[in-house]
Each structure stands twice: as C-alpha cells, then as structure tokens.
C-alpha cells in the first residue's frame, strides 16, 4: 500500500492541526478517492478523539487559592538562611586561612627525611610528617624485610636502628 506510506503521517499532522491549507486540500482529495486511506484516516481520528476525551479532575479553585498563599508567604527558615549563608562562608574561609598559620610540631628528629636513591628508585623530595615506624607500618604489607630494604635504598642509611625497639 504505497499511498498509505505517503499519506499516513500527513493524516496525523492534519488531525494535529499542523497542515497548511494546500496540504489539507491535497490530502482530503486523496482520502475521498481512496477507501483504504479513508478507513485509516477514520482510525487515526478515532484514536485521537478518544485520547482527547480522557479528562483529569482538577482540584477546585479554593485548593489553588490556599496553595497560592503558601507560595507567597516566605518560608520561615528562609530569612535565617539568608543571614547564615554568608556567615558560614566567612567562618569557613577564616578557618581555611588560619590553617596556613598553624605551626606543625617540630620533631624533626623522628621524621623520616627521604632522599633520592642512587639507583633512581624511591625518588621522594619531601619531608614526611611521620616517623620511621609509621613509614614502615605504611609499607608493611610488602613484608618487613623488603620494607627495610626499600627504606635503606630510599634513606641511604642502614635501617637496623628501626628494629631496636
């Protein structure tokens, strides 16, 4: 059914009120002379008419009036939030800034100072804020022996003293 393909979409567009006068005339002329398309058009018309007949019961106007009042009356917590928001931001900023001035305890003796190893591995160019034992704990999933070897490479010093206690 070649004409069906050609006119089917146009039928739906016509029922949707989206066709121009010329397009409408052309389609209607075809439908008049083609019983199959006339039947199809009737079916589409039926589907759309029945769909349109499905109504929704909308709440009465007094319900909407109450709802409207709820919108216009500002919520009580809103005003508080308006003042609190900038205050909270300010406090957070102050806290962040103050963190830069907090002096870390200077127990350099206990800290591990990592160096670049000779063979190029374990290149760490910073001071760690934890002690040797802590560092060992952090890498103990390898196993203690390998860990001490790694430490020896990294620190370039024997790790014997670590196991003294």
């Amino acid at each position, binding site marked *: 059914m070649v004409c069906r393909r050609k006119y089917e979409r146009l039928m739906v567009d016509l029922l949707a009120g*989206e066709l121009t006068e010329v397009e409408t005339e052309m389609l209607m002329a075809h439908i008049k002379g083609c019983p199959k398309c006339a039947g199809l058009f009737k079916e589409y018309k039926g*589907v759309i008419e029945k*769909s349109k007949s499905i109504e*929704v*019961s909308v709440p009465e106007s007094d319900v*909407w009036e109450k*709802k409207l009042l709820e*919108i*216009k009356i500002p919520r009580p917590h809103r005003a508080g939030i308006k003042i609190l928001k900038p205050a909270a931001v300010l406090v957070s900023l102050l806290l962040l800034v103050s963190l830069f001035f907090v002096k870390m305890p200077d127990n350099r003796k206990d800290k591990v100072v990592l160096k670049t190893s000779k063979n190029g591995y374990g290149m760490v160019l910073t001071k760690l804020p934890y002690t040797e034992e802590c560092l060992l704990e952090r890498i103990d999933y390898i196993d203690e022996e390998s860990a001490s070897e790694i430490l020896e490479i990294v620190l370039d010093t024997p790790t014997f003293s670590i196991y003294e206690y």
Partner: protein
Amino acid sequence: MPDGKKRLFEEFYKEYAGKLYGVAFRMVNNRQDAMDIVQESFIRAYKNWEKFRNESAVSTWMYKITLNLSYDFLKKRSTNGYLPIEKDFEDKRLHISEKNIIDLDMVDSIKKEIDNLTPKQKMVFILKCYEELTYEEIARITKSRVGTVKATYFQVIQKIKKNLGGKKNGM
C-alpha cells in the same frame, strides 16, 4: 516584589495552575505528586518572576519546569520500583448509558497505552493532544528538533492505534 508583578503572578497562577496540574497528573498518575510538582514549579517561577518579560516566555518555562520535575519524579519512581495505584481520571461510567461502555473500555485501553509510553513520548503526546501546542512550541519546551517532535507524536499515535487493533468498535 512590586505589587504589579505580584498581581501578574497571581493571574498567571490562576490561569495555569489547573493546566499544569493536568500535565503533571497525566505524567505521574498520582494526585498528590502532581500537586507537589505544580507547587514546586510555581515556587521556582515566583523566585524568578522578575526576570520574565512576557507571558509566552513564562508559560514555556513553566511547562518545561513542570515536565522536568515530572520526568525526574518518574525516573526516581522507576528506580524505587514504585507503581502508582491512584487513578484520578474522570470516570464517565457514572454519567453515561450502557451502550457507550465499549467506548469507555477503549478509553481505558488508551490510558494503559499512555502509561506504557516512555517519559519523553508522554511529554510530546500530552503537550500535543491535551495542551494543543504546536510542534514548534513542543520542540522549544522539550529542547528537541521540530522533526523529532513530529516523528515522536506520529509514533505514539501509531502505537496506540496498533495496540487497539482488536477494539475497533468505537472508531
């Protein structure tokens, strides 16, 4: 907000609250949820009211926000595995004679078909069939191309027609 603007908001609310409720209800199929969606849409509109310049821009924006909220709601509901129980469509069985019962059965089937549409198909169908917006307006609201809207609407109507194949008595 100046009094003039407030009055305009009230007028807009009175004109559109019911319409948007219809849209939201057809999307989510639940009275309370539809009410919440409409209320939330108007709260957002109230906050931005002074930015709007004309009614057409507001109505487009309102349809958009109502549909988006409904869409989000449907997505959330499908992840929670919740199925709507409440149906608040007008039941015309109370007002009509028995000979039209077949028609009503068909209407019930159409409701089921609409329920089974994807949220995006539902949006296009509702805006075209019930709100009678143009393809162009729908494209603006759904942020799609006119051709896509046209094709989606055709697919939906075709799908409903096909699935109602065995109930042609009323057509």
